[in-house]
């Protein structure tokens, strides 16, 4: 309380109040507008596709498919955004998905391992590769483009090697469930109730902390509206999915990872340092941040998440093939960039990346529903990627 009393009695009390936060300004910041515009873009795309498919696009069944299709790219994009924020890149992610999925499935087939062991192996392979590539980038000072380009080739070769070119069908039902099962409807309702409660608690906790530090000028209405919108979205999301078969397991995993990722990036010292390192590595170094260690961590997390995605990818297909995951890195990078990440580093959010993944998956799904030929789909996606980033660059230049 004494801090607040002190600031209230300085010569310029207005500074204390306005320094804390202009009420509306925060909600209209550049990055906020970016996120909103992506949400709007997704809404528009959904509306268009719903229209031209006679409503099938937004049917519970297709919505469920769409969410499931987003999962793998979404999980990868959570890791990729961390790497991109540090101004590095990881091109080996697709090959790593193939390799880790293959390792997990082969352990089941060849060594009769159970769910836990095989998943741990998949994660372990991803983490080990991530650590290696991170070390080569951060400590051996080899450009990440080259390290991960080499990885793209090498890990694909490794997958070919250990599988002998064969595709391994999955026989373990618990593992298969990772990609193909649904969360019980009742559990789904329970989860969303917990989620809404958590949103409410978080909002209240924040208000309380603000009041404790004398920042009541912050908009109470803004916080309430945000909490309400988030709760409504969560509820709508789960209810639609429940109308078909429940929340798909991969989607639940994606949500959990996305929440953890968002928390890590925006609420921890680790995340803060990651943004600093990407924004200005020199200034970060002079501020005592261990720049190399931060980069290494980013790659480790990326590798770990590639392991997760690898397991889910294989589970969804029902088998692990040596070509699994080809070109997935491009989808992940596109998702991050559409979501607002800058390849120069220092910019990008997990939420944006996931929305970017959802956007791309929506285009995919909608165009497939309309039987648009594959080559046209590729051209459209490429064009939209350039358009999205071009518009963003234009908007930033005007700032």
């Amino acid at each position, binding site marked *: 309380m004494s801090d607040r009393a002190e600031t209230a009695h300085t010569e310029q009390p207005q500074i204390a109040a306005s320094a804390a936060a202009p009420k509306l300004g925060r909600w209209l910041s550049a990055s906020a507008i970016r996120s909103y515009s992506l949400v709007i873009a997704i809404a528009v795309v959904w509306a268009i596709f719903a229209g031209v498919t006679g409503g099938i696009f937004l049917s519970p069944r297709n919505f469920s498919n769409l969410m499931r299709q987003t999962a793998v790219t979404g999980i990868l994009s959570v890791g990729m955004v961390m790497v991109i924020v540090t101004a590095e890149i990881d091109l080996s992610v697709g090959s790593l998905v193939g390799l880790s999925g293959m390792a997990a499935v082969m352990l089941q087939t060849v060594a009769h391992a159970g769910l836990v062991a095989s998943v741990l192996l998949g994660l372990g392979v991803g983490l080990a590769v991530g650590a290696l590539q991170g070390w080569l980038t951060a400590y051996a000072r080899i450009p990440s483009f080259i390290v991960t380009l080499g990885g793209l080739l090498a890990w694909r070769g490794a997958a070919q090697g250990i599988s002998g070119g064969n595709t391994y069908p999955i026989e373990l039902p618990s593992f298969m469930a990772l990609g193909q099962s649904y969360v019980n409807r009742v559990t789904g309702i329970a989860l969303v109730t917990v989620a809404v409660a958590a949103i409410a608690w978080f909002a209240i906790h924040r208000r309380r*902390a603000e009041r404790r530090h*004398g920042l009541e000028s912050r908009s109470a209405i803004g916080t309430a509206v945000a909490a309400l919108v988030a709760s409504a979205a969560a509820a709508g999301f789960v209810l639609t999915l429940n109308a078909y078969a429940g929340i798909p397991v991969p989607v639940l995993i994606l949500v959990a990872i996305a929440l953890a990722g968002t928390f890590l990036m925006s609420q921890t010292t680790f995340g*803060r340092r990651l943004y600093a390192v990407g924004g200005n590595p020199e200034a970060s*170094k002079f501020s005592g941040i261990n720049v190399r260690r931060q980069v290494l961590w980013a790659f480790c997390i990326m590798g770990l998440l590639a392991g997760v995605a690898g397991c889910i990818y294989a589970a969804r297909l029902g088998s692990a093939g040596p070509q699994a995951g080809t070109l997935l890195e491009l989808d992940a990078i596109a998702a991050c960039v559409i979501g607002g990440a800058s390849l120069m580093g220092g910019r990008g959010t997990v939420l944006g990346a996931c929305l970017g993944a959802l956007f791309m998956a929506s285009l995919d799904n909608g165009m497939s529903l309309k039987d648009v030929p594959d080559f046209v789909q590729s051209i459209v996606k490429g064009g939209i990627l350039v358009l999205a980033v071009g518009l963003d660059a234009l908007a930033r230049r005007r700032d």
Partner: protein
Amino acid sequence: MTVQKEPLLQMSHITKTFPGVRALDGVTFDLFPGEIHSLVGENGAGKSTLMKILAGVYPEHGGKIRIEGQPQQFRNVRDAENAGVAVVFQELSLVRELTVGENIFLGREPSRFGVVEWNRVYAQAASLLRELNIDIDPRVTAGTLGTGRQQTVEIAKALSHNARILVLDEPTAALTGAESENLFAVLRMLRDRGVGIIYISHRLEEVFVLSDRITVLRDGKTICTVARGSFNQQALIAQMVGREVTQLFPHRARSLGEVVFEVRHVTVTDPTGRGGLLVDDVSFAVRKGEVLGIAGLIGAGRTELLTALFGATPGRTGEILVDSQPAKITRPSDAIARGIGFVTEDRKRSGLVLDESVVKNMTLVALEHVSGVFITSEAREIAASTKWFDRLRIKAPSLFAKVRTLSGGTQQKVVLAKWLMNEARVLFLDEPTRGIDVGAKAEIYQLIDNLAQSGVAVVLVSSELPEILGLCDRIVVLRQGRIAGEFSGAGATPEAVMARAIGASLPAA
């Protein structure tokens, strides 16, 4: 040579302003053909800016330039080159991966129907180098040459333009004695051919030997011009540094505590492997509440010293003691853990994350103490930042304003706040008021004084003599990496400090 001729070059009432700083204020300068006219002055006096205007680097400026009586309007460097101006700057601009011959003819290679005639390139380069008595094979890759020889190639490149006006900015800084002598011979030969030469250097002995006339610049103004026969070192130095005290520095009545930071026999080797010593056997100590100044010319090793002491560059030997305890500092976090802070020379490059907000920049060092060991608390950060925001009177729209949008002075305050929030006990300041307007400068001087009063030990590197003399209790002068002098109290005069910085003898008491 006092033959009356038409001036080859006339620069009249040249003015140049950068945001917040008036670099040149009505400078007049002229040059006759067949003359070596030297420009001298402190760092920041405006010499390089004036020459950049002549070279066409700054097309926008006040005043007029006339060459052989014809008014000139340089829109770019090419225009200046075509008018017969050739400049060799201090910063090397050779392309390291290309050969010497390619560098000399860069952009104007003799060609036939668009195809370069390499034989002619190398033949012409070889004959040019021979004529200038430079023993370098034009087919050698430029990057493999030492800095001194690279500089010689730059001079050859400038001369290959058949310039009427040749400008050299600190040409002997990286040359050996023999190379310098060679250069002087070449310059005299060119002068005798009628070329007008502008020579910028801090080495007054050289300037006296070479020049026909010497002009002194100070604070962006022409102070005086003297001709051969009237050269006097003491008088020249006095003109370079003498000025009315228009800036008020806070009155210093400081009580000094015990020694809190000490450096013994510190040596820093050049990390680029050229084998030189950037800092050579430097020792000093700073007390609690004391402001120690480190003066010297650019390249004397001041920034290199601080950066190495902070643990940000490798190759340092010697001892560092904090509170009389030996401190092992191998990286910046070691220094920070010992309570040392470093406000670097270039805040945009190494002080701030420009696209982040004020609060995120301020909390960057003390993040774990202020916000939380793992989970950050925005409310705590805002509270801590508001305190410094108010105390330092930071003029920003809010704590969330992006630092990039702030003025230089405000940005510097954010950097200072960052270190103060971390409770720095020893603060290194490297050119803290560079690129900052007069009003903000005064505020920062007050802040520095407040810091000293509250017991912080301050080490201040500055190229502005008034600043160093006005703020510091003691001044150490570095020259070519070594301590060249130490002053305090009445002995600390601008002339004495400048004399030590350039290696001249001290003025008579």
